[in-house]
């Protein structure tokens, strides 16, 4: 790991150089009164002081709709692999944690070459949070800061950024920062102070147990009044799924051309809150009730997915679902804390 410091002016020159390079550069920008990840046209448009983006960078890691293969019915098919080089600029630690989880999920068991090929072409420049969003609870989930996954990590220390290049890709990018100087002890102290503060500050909703208790807590509460109490107001609109950085379920659809023979197989985001998500052949729906679907999401985050990735909780505390839910029922902390009140977790 090489750690250096660049002034904010020098950093702007770095971003301009990056935009001029031959790879796609996506960064956080303001849109109306919120922030989004989008293609970056100028360094001035970049807003590393953002609170949270509407959608997470998942939309680049696992696109909303992507071709998997081209086919000619009854004859042949050709897999499609997308993999143009891209830099994702301004990924917050909680989103980095979600990307790390997806990397693990898509590479284990059935190795997903579509995902992994794209992922290998993406360079992630993460940044520590400057402005906490209104619903963030990353501190409760242990994701207010992140230690791995990024190629480069930026920490705003006032008039400069502390830059940690963690991988070869990240180190290569520092070539575009000729004025960077080795970080001083004072810079590193400031950097650590920002991170320590974030571990306290990014906590607008406080989970009343350690995240590692969640699998056990859920195991004891499959039947619990909270599921029905909350789901009563659920529109099954899937907004919580759409904005979630760790939701990775998808649907697969074929689209055929006018020759009625050749076509493309796509996969597109799906969501477990949607009524037809669990409908299978014969129109059998094994999660027909809203409360079953509402419960399923929180079980996925707190129990099922952790079972696949060494106990990591698949909720990173970004708080996007809390903001996105029209009925105000999606807050995972609220549900888990209600379960805590009535459960002896031993």
């Amino acid at each position, binding site marked *: 790991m090489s750690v250096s410091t660049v002034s904010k002016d020098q950093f702007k020159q770095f971003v301009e150089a990056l935009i001029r390079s031959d790879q796609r550069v996506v960064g956080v920008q303001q*849109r*109306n*009164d*919120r922030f*989004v990840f989008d293609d970056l046209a100028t360094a001035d448009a970049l807003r590393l002081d953002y609170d949270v983006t*509407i*959608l997470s960078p998942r939309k680049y890691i696992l696109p*909303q709709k992507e071709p998997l293969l081209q086919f000619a019915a009854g004859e042949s098919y050709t897999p499609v692999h997308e993999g143009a080089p891209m830099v994702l600029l301004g990924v917050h630690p909680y989103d980095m944690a979600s990307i790390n989880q997806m990397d693990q999920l898509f590479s284990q068991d059935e190795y997903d070459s579509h995902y992994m090929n794209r992922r290998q072409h993406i360079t992630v420049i993460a940044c520590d949070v400057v402005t906490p969003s209104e619903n963030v609870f990353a501190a409760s989930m242990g994701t207010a800061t992140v230690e791995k996954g990024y190629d480069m990590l930026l920490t705003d220390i006032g008039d400069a950024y502390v830059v940690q290049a963690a991988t070869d890709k990240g180190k290569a990018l520092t070539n575009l920062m000729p004025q960077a100087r080795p970080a001083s002890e004072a810079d590193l102290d400031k950097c650590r102070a920002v991170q320590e503060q974030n571990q306290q500050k990014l906590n607008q909703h406080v989970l009343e147990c350690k995240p590692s208790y969640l699998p056990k807590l859920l195991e004891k509460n499959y039947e619990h009044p909270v599921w029905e109490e909350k789901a*009563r*107001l*659920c*529109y*099954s*609109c*899937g*907004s919580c799924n*759409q*904005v979630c950085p760790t939701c990775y379920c998808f649907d697969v*659809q074929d*689209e*055929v*051309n*006018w020759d*009625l023979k050749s076509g493309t197989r796509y996969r597109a*985001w799906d*969501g477990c809150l*949607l*009524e*037809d998500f669990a409908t299978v052949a014969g129109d059998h729906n094994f999660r027909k009730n*809203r409360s079953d679907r509402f419960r399923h999401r929180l079980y996925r985050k707190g129990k099922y997915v952790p079972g696949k990735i060494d106990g990591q909780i698949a909720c990173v505390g970004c708080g996007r679902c809390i*903001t*996105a839910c*029209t*009925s*105000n029922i999606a807050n995972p902390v609220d549900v888990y804390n209600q379960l805590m009140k009535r459960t002896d977790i031993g």
Partner: protein
Amino acid sequence: MSKPRVAIFDFACCEGCQLQIVNIEEEIIDLVGAVDVVEWREAMSEQSHEYDIAIIEGSITRPEDEHRVQIIRTRAKILIALGACATIGGVNKMKNNFDLNEVKRCVYGQDAGMPHLATTTTRAVHEVVDVDYKIHGCPIEGEEFKRIIRDLLLGKTPFVPNYPVCVECKERENVCRYEYNEICLGPIIRAGCGAPCPTAQWRCFGCRGLVDNPNVDAAQEVMEQYNLTLDDLKQKMVLFNSK
């Protein structure tokens, strides 16, 4: 195998959904390569009583319309309702909120009693005859129309979303209108449009009709959270989703 014969008919509507078919432009050539269009008043002069697929645009508002659509049903193997007027009754159903005689007087004045102006309660096509497939929207989406036609030609059940507009609205990174204390019909209306109205910072107007299982019971409590009322919501439903 001979190509399936398709006939397109219009009832009470603005014919904008047919225009959306015309608007697929060069792909019209692909369409007529895949099917035989035997009747389509807006685009050709030929007529036919023999067809496999009937596409019905518009709602049923007159006694003679009811008779005509019943005959079409007996002739067609597959009947498709095209656009909001056909699939849900659409704006034509606003009429049903008023006394029929009052409506006639308002529109036709002293001629209201003339026999050729006879009108009945507005109905969607499926409220009169069996409908096999629905292509939703006001107007329909050209891309969706093409995909559904190709799927039917393959003998495949076309995918039509049964989830709310919110899914596509969030995909486009819109901020929920309710965050600004504005009514939006998105949470109960069928997606498939790509949420153009909320993306233009309007509300969802509801032109694709309700999802199969809308959470109507939640409405009152949710409206109250935003200092809105059930009546506010109902007023916005009138335009496309009157009974």
